[in-house]
């Protein structure tokens, strides 16, 4: 009698919990198996996702490299202090020594009026014209290199600039960094652009996954009806489709990583050649581990969300008749 009762009983809580996890693992692999049965269409969907994500991911990586490169340039920042003409050479040298003792100054280089003239004649191509002048029109210059910390560069250089400007010997002081600033401004715009592009393409991935899952739901309409008829909950029916979305996201993410890595690899040589021409040591940075993981996570997330939307929209429509 006891035995009879046992076979009639519903599964206990522990059994249910265990079955639940086993079921998840089964569906995890089952959905992978389903995808592998149609390798071409699966690959095409994953390629679309991969390409859509590779574009912003690749641009982001390039942007990071550009930012790093311009960070190097920032260390070349210097302030040119043009001294008043009445300042004599000895006074200028004394001032140079004074400034050198300031806390946020690395070095000061003095260019006398004669030196400046010589340099100008040599470099400008106006040599003959300058000879016609009776007196040297150029002032003496102190080139001040600011000490840069990793943070707060802009503020400390600005303070230094103001201090130099306020010296009574100074005619004019200017920071030779305007072009770096402009580059920064441009890169900010590009960064926004990449972000917008990324958002749009993420939306595209959502739509691609959503549409693919929608088709999968329609193809398995009969199965869904049967499941509903014999007591399958929405969660049970939803699960394989969500895992399918997961796989699409994962494979799409891997493909986009491969695309970006391959592209970076293929352009790294020419870029190194280019930077050597500019006498600059620069090594192209590939995607970092963190960026790679973020890309994969994001891709999986998009796959899941896309399939979640599709399943939520279409599963309710399918009811047994």
């Amino acid at each position, binding site marked *: 009698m006891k035995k009879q009762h046992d076979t009639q009983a519903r*599964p206990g809580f522990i*059994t249910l919990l265990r*079955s639940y996890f086993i*079921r998840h693992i089964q569906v995890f692999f089952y959905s992978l198996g389903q995808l592998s049965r149609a390798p071409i269409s699966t690959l095409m969907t994953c390629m679309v996702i991969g390409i859509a994500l590779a574009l912003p991911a690749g641009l982001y990586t390039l942007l990071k490299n550009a930012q790093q490169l311009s960070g190097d340039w920032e260390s070349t920042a210097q302030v040119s202090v043009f001294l008043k003409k009445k300042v004599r050479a000895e006074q200028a040298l004394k001032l140079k020594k004074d400034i050198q003792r300031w806390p946020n100054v690395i070095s000061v280089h003095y260019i006398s009026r004669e030196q400046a003239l010589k340099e100008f004649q040599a470099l400008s191509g106006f040599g003959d014209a300058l000879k016609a002048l009776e007196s040297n029109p150029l002032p003496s210059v102190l080139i001040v290199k600011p000490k840069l910390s990793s943070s707060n560069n802009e503020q400390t250089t600005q303070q230094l600039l103001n201090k130099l400007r306020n010296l009574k010997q100074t005619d004019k002081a200017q920071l030779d960094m305007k072009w770096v600033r402009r580059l920064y401004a441009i890169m900010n715009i590009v960064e926004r652009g990449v972000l917008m592009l990324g958002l749009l393409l993420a939306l595209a991935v959502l739509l691609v996954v959503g549409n693919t899952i929608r088709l999968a739901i329609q193809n398995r309409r009969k199965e869904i009806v049967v499941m509903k*008829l014999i*007591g*399958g*909950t929405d969660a049970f029916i939803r699960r394989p489709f969500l895992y399918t979305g997961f796989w699409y996201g994962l494979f799409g993410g891997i493909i986009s990583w491969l695309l970006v890595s391959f592209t970076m690899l293929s352009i790294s040589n020419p870029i190194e050649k280019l930077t050597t021409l500019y006498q600059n040591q620069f090594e192209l940075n590939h995607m970092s581990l963190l960026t790679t993981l973020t890309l994969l996570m994001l891709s999986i997330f998009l796959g899941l969300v896309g399939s979640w939307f599709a399943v939520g929209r279409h599963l309710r429509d399918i*009811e047994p008749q």
Partner: protein
Amino acid sequence: MIRFVNASKRYSSGFDALQNVNFHMVPGEMAFLTGHSGAGKSSLLKLIALLERSSRGQVIVNNQNLSKVPRRRIPYFRRNIGIIFQDHQLLFDRTVYDNVALPLIIAGFSHRDIGKRVRAALDKVGLLGKEKKYPITLSGGEQQRVGIARAVVNKPPLILADEPTGNLDPELSAEIMDLFQDFSHVGVTVLVATHDIALISKLSHRLLTLKDGKLINDSQPAA
């Protein structure tokens, strides 16, 4: 087990599929539901399985008032009903074993239990040894028996069958009916919708007759 109290079903098109239906079936009872096509047999079964809800009146199944079962509880409610269809509703991309196991997987039985129960159910319908076959390779009668095995594998207290012998010859139909009688003998309530008068007349069971959505006859078997 099943109680209809003034139950009516009107579709949004205005068609009255059922009007003021009253009847009661006790546990272990077996009954036939007959009537012409469109008389309301399918609608009545749909009300019991909560595929539709009654427009008026009460339907009480297994001591549950169906109008009070929320949508998200419907799957759990359906697990107590074995439903058998004329067109089997089998999944053709899965083996016989997987088809029959489906209700148990949904209910979360352990792997070992599933194997035991599936084999017991297939044994009951005489299909033991065909677990690995695909439904498409089976005959119509065998497919229907797979459907029956799937309906009873969960040991539900109630079995609904909608024209289960519609496509079968008389001999196979009789076999299927024998199966249903066996289930009712062990306490399962069985309601079979059919218009196979020849078959019904051979068996002495309660007969519910629908006409234009009204229950016009409720006759107990002549003892």
